[in-house]
């Protein structure tokens, strides 16, 4: 099963626009990444923080609703964060103009 995951990761990270993919576990520790380590840890910490606040805020606005994804578009890239049950995935890509 791990080989399948590796293949999927490789396929997506080879897309021209994708700068990196990070899989982070529930403790905000990156388990798989295609970028360099310090940057990965930085992204993982920020994504964890944003997800925690984001899901709390969505619950406050409507208690039956829940956060499924976050997309931040900045000047230089686009950051997509998707939470799952035990982990979350962060994808960084270059925005196409």
């Amino acid at each position, binding site marked *: 099963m791990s080989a399948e995951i590796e293949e999927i990761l490789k396929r997506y990270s080879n897309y021209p626009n994708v700068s990196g993919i990070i899989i982070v576990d529930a403790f905000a520790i990156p388990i798989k990444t295609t970028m360099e380590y310090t940057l990965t840890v*930085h*992204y993982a910490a*920020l994504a964890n*923080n*944003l997800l925690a*606040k*984001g899901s709390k*805020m*969505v619950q*406050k*606005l*409507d208690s*039956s*609703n*829940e*956060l*499924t*994804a*976050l*997309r*931040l*578009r*900045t*000047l*230089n*890239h686009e950051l997509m964060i998707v939470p799952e049950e035990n982990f979350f995935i962060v994808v960084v890509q270059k925005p196409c103009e």
Partner: protein
Amino acid sequence: MNKSNFKKLVAVVQSNSENTARISEQTSGYVVSENGSDTVMQTSFDNSTAVGIVKHLNSSFVKLAQSSVRDLDPTDKLCFLRVVTRKFEYMVAPEDSFVVTVVL
């Protein structure tokens, strides 16, 4: 200064009334709020919902997202934020003096 700023912003919003009409048709609604004081300028929701959205979403979360982006890269800046939930999707566009939020 604050009152004239407010009037200018209202003028900008009103000059985009065509877009506003299109947005209110196709989506659940929108909220335009002022950045400095977190007050609602224009909205297609009822006031309590709009104030709730601004209070929870805009004031704390968008600022957190902006500071995270600048933490990663000091020259970078948040242009757009999309919060996808099970029921709707909030699309937030922060500008210098105001924030536009559209609920899809």
